[in-house]
């Protein structure tokens, strides 16, 4: 069935391919290949939305990406519900379901449209003024209501099931915009053989050739020429042609972000295709051929559905074969709207009148319109549009005042002139320049290797555009390294020319009026709002913009910026360039989060690191915790155990018999070379030169400021080889810290650093029975206390594989850490586990590890220290080499504030009630009765229930802590004041006898 407003013979669509679609539940027929906007217009539907603030009925303004009004929700299924889709961009497919937004209960009757009547309350800056009193009412009353009433679409409430892909690309010449200029530039560059990418946001290349019926190039209709040229480009090996692809951001050094809409136009995209593809392109040269955007006329009620840009009406007619009305009026300040009137008239649409603001314009277009019998009025203005849900009339008046005349129309086509699209140029940090004669901003000073051609450069006329673009394309290729080749420049046989126009409010919407003449449709900003902003003291255009929100909607003011600027300038009595243009920022059009995120979500968001022993722990039912990117076994609950019970059992078992712990995540760095000991002397506070091979030492690393940066046990394997361990989270930064000093401060030292974190699986076996468990599996290492004392390391074999066996302890018990190549980690663990079973050993997790070390007062860097703790504060002075003359941090440590009295020092805390476990992070005060806010003298850094001690234990940083031993302090909580006693940091086996027990 041919819909009512389709013009037989007009447009370029194959009429046979019908697509059924629905809008607000009503079913319609459209044609595949057209936009949703075109299909709705073909069915006579203009009313498609309600405005942001006043809920005014809105229709289509444009036929492209600049559309401010026609935002709809496209729903494929419950999860695929996309709000704020521009109906002028969305292509139709069979079964498409669309809904209007921001209306209740229905589009035609919207309760909130009362906001329109109450609009004196909602003028510019209303947020800051009207709803301020009483203060409490803002949060509870005004804000929720305003938020509910204002706004655009509703965000989807389910995870996005679609797939988004991403590609990096490099090219010599990147051409942005596929109109006549872009195609000509791409042809010139491509012929030289350099790598070219040509991208355009539309489904069909051609830009304004889609509607410019008067253009002829190389003997063909302009649009047909464009299709032929793009087909030719697409067939070249050195060219990539991307349609439906928007360049949204222009970044440093010719790095351009583009989004390709791969499957939004397909009925059944299938699983093979991503929804969108992000292209990150690095180009040697960029050609900007982004065209120009037509401006609307600013007059009273210019937002009524049916009032639209003249070029949009032409696109709907010439490209899609759809008439936007049966009896249209035209309101213009330049020639281009005449072309729309002529095309429509020739297609059989009634043109009631052309109202031209200019006094006595001349030209072939005007003559042709007259010849077709169209009424043309000069020096007159449309001062008002009639109608509500659809425009019904235009009221005309001589522009200097006089008698009004109301002409019935069902659409008004308007054109105030064309604004060059300098968005990408401006994003590239180029500076625009104002051309006073043509009243437009055009590219001025370039900041990057790019060039603007055609309408976006302020170049008028097809012939001049193609000359300029073709030359620029050839030069870009040459600059990128191409050889000159014989040129075959396209020849322009006929073209249309339209330039000039007007900026700002038209007569009837001037300073003395209170009418609603919209400047920014999407944010409901009127000419009056902008004047009011100036009257209220806004001087800079950036302030006017923020006060009125002009140009701040999702369309980024593509149609409104220049009008807003002109009105502000007029009100300020300043020339336009002195008021300034607001900055253009990426993205050019809204970009989905999906395309930015790409594959990096869910499991692919961040790597998950698992140890070699992870599968065993998983099979044992371990509960895991995240430590950085690592999954670490937290505790191993037995049937019926909660975390508390499991951790208590693990802690007791380790001290009674033994426990196995997966310590593989510890950072490990191999420090090797003739100067390895010298390097260690400089990077750690401890002395290393005299440490014998085969022995270990607890090392502390500082930053230059003297604060603790990392710690760990270091084994000296040979005179020139150290096995350094770091904290789990600190491994990468410690490696970076070491490399930094080695490469830049101590390059004279002959040392190599290798990260070996993932090369070694580490199995800690701790407890009185630990040696009994390990010994049967070890070859070539004497495990007697004499041969392998506490803090020593030997190389040998375990279960037949090489091992570095450390005798060390993070529990205070006799302990070992078995390092084996990661590939053997699980096998060796299982062998140790079955030995351990004979002795009643358990596997323990990170929670028990934390409790056991706290019972011994061993600190965890990053938990008990926070980047402001010196070795002295942590009670680790013994680990600082007193005779050393240099190490990183030696000077920082000696700063006056770091050696002053009263610094926070690490101490133990025992609650008076042993059952009470403090909260980590809780603040500590001296006098519980002092007035609030209390003076806080420290905080709890670690706190646990210790089953081995039969009470709670805690570590804390307390001002002057070591001088407060035995003192009673207080931990104020919401419901209690907890009494604590300051103690030493060792809660279990104070003499340390169990290390050899």
């Amino acid at each position, binding site marked *: 069935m041919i819909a009512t407003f389709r013009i037989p013979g007009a447009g370029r669509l194959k009429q046979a391919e019908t697509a059924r679609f629905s809008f607000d539940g009503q079913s319609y027929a459209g044609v595949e290949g057209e936009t949703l906007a075109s299909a709705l217009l073909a069915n006579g539907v203009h009313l498609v939305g309600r405005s942001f603030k006043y809920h005014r009925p809105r229709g289509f303004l444009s036929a492209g990406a600049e559309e401010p009004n026609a935002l709809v929700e496209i729903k494929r299924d419950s999860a695929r519900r996309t709000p704020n889709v521009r109906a002028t961009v969305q292509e139709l497919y069979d079964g498409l379901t669309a809904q209007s937004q921001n209306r209740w209960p229905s589009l035609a009757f919207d309760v909130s449209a009362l906001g329109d009547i109450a609009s004196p309350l909602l003028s510019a800056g209303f947020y800051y003024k009207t709803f301020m009193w009483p203060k409490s009412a803002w949060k509870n009353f005004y804000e929720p209501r305003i938020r509910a009433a204002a706004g655009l679409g509703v965000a989807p409430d389910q995870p996005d099931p679609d797939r988004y892909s991403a590609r990096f690309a490099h090219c010599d010449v990147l051409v942005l915009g596929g109109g006549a200029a872009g195609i000509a530039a791409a042809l010139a560059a491509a012929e030289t053989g350099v790598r070219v990418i040509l991208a355009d946001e539309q489904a069909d290349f051609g830009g304004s050739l889609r509607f410019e019926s008067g253009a002829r190039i190389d003997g063909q209709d302009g649009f047909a020429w464009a299709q032929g040229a793009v087909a030719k480009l697409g067939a070249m090996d050195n060219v990539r042609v991307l349609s439906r692809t928007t360049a949204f951001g222009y*970044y*440093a*050094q010719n*790095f351009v972000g583009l989004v390709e809409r791969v499957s939004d136009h397909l009925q059944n995209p299938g699983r093979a295709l991503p929804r969108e593809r992000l292209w*990150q392109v*690095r180009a040697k040269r960029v050609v900007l051929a982004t065209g120009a955007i037509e401006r609307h006329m600013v007059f009273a009620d210019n937002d009524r559905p049916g009032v639209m840009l003249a070029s949009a009406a032409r696109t709907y007619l010439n490209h899609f074969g759809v008439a936007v009305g049966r009896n249209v009026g035209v309101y213009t300040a330049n020639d281009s709207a005449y072309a729309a009137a002529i095309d429509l008239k020739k297609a059989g649409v009634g043109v009631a009148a052309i109202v031209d603001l200019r006094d006595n314009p001349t030209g072939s277009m005007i003559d042709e319109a007259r010849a077709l019998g169209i009424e043309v009025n000069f020096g007159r203005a449309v001062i008002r549009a009639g109608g509500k849900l659809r425009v019904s009339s235009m009221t005309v008046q001589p522009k200097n005042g006089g008698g009004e005349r109301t002409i019935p129309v069902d659409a008004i086509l308007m054109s105030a002139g064309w604004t060059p699209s300098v968005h990408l140029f401006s994003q590239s*940090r180029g500076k625009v320049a104002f051309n006073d004669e043509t009243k437009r901003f055009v590219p001025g000073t370039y*900041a990057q290797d790019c060039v603007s051609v055609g309408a976006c450069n302020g170049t008028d006329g097809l012939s001049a555009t193609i000359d300029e673009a073709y030359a620029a394309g050839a030069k870009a290729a040459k600059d990128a390294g191409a050889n000159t080749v014989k040129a075959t420049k396209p020849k322009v046989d006929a073209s249309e020319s339209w330039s000039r126009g007007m900026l700002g409010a038209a007569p009837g919407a001037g300073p003395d009026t209170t009418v609603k003449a919209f400047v920014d449709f999407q944010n409901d900003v009127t000419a009056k709002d902008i004047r009011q902003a100036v009257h209220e003291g806004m001087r800079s255009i950036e302030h006017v913009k923020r006060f009125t929100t002009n140009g701040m909607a999702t369309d980024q003011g593509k149609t409104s910026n220049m009008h807003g600027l002109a009105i502000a300038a007029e009100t300020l009595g300043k020339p336009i360039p002195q008021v300034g243009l607001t900055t253009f920022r990426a993205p050019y059009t809204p970009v989905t989060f999906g395309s930015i995120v790409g594959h990096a979500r869910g499991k692919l968001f961040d790597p998950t690191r698992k140890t070699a022993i992870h599968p065993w722990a998983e099979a044992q039912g371990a509960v895991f915790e995240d430590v950085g990117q690592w999954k670490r076994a937290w505790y191993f609950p037995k049937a019926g155990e909660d975390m508390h019970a499991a951790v208590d059992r693990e802690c007791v078992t380790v001290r009674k018999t033994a426990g196995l712990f997966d310590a593989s995540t510890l950072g490990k760095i191999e420090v090797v070379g003739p100067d390895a000991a010298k390097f260690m002397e400089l990077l750690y506070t401890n002395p290393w030169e005299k440490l014998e091979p085969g022995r270990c030492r607890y090392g502390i690393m500082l930053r*230059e*400021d003297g604060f603790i940066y990392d710690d760990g046990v270091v084994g000296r394997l040979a005179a020139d080889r150290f096995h350094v361990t770091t904290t789990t989270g600190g491994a990468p930064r410690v490696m*970076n810290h070491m*490399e*930094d000093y080695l*490469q*830049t*401060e101590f*390059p004279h030292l002959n040392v190599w650093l290798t990260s070996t974190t993932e090369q070694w699986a580490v199995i800690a076996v701790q407890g009185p029975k630990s040696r009994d468990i390990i010994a049967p599996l070890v070859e070539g290492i004497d495990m007697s206390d004499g041969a392998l004392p506490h803090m020593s390391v030997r190389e040998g074999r375990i279960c037949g594989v090489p091992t570095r066996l450390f005798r060390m302890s993070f529990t205070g018990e006799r302990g070992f850490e078995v390092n084996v190549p990661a590939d053997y980690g699980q096998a060796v663990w299982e062998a140790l586990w079955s030995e351990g079973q004979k002795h009643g050993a358990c596997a323990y997790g990170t929670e028990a590890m934390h409790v056991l070390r706290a019972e011994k007062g061993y600190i965890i860097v990053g938990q008990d220290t926070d980047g402001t703790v010196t070795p002295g504060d942590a009670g680790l002075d013994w680990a600082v080499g007193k005779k050393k*003359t*240099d190490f990183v941090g*030696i*000077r*920082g440590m*000696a*700063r*006056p504030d770091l050696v002053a009295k009263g610094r926070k020092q690490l101490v133990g805390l025992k609650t008076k009630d042993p059952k009470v476990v403090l909260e980590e992070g809780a603040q500590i005060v001296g006098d519980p009765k002092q007035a609030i806010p209390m003076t806080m003298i420290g905080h709890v850094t670690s706190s646990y229930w210790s089953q081995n001690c039969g009470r709670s234990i805690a570590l804390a940083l307390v001002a002057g802590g070591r001088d407060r031993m035995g003192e009673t302090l207080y931990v104020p909580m919401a419901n209690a004041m907890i009494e604590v006693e300051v103690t030493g940091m060792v809660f279990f086996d104070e003499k340390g006898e169990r290390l050899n027990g």
Partner: protein
Amino acid sequence: MLLIRCPYCEEERPELEFRNAGEAHIARSADMAATSDDDFEKFFFIRSNPKGIIYERWRHMHGCARFFNAVRDTVSDRFLMTYKAGEPKPAKLPGASE
């Protein structure tokens, strides 16, 4: 995303491969322990933060892993040149007046 030339790899590579490492040409004293409070303050805390030309350290983290020096214009973000760690501050900058 910036393009940065690694003076060791002798190639321009995308910023993703690099990490900034703060201002360059701040030498650590050979006699650190004897540094005065004022000199330590200058060495550790004071940075120039210029509007314009900055000399800074970068590391080709996901490449050769070497630290090197770079001259960057903080206004345009342009890298004027890069050079190896340990080399002196360049006397002349290419294209500085551009």
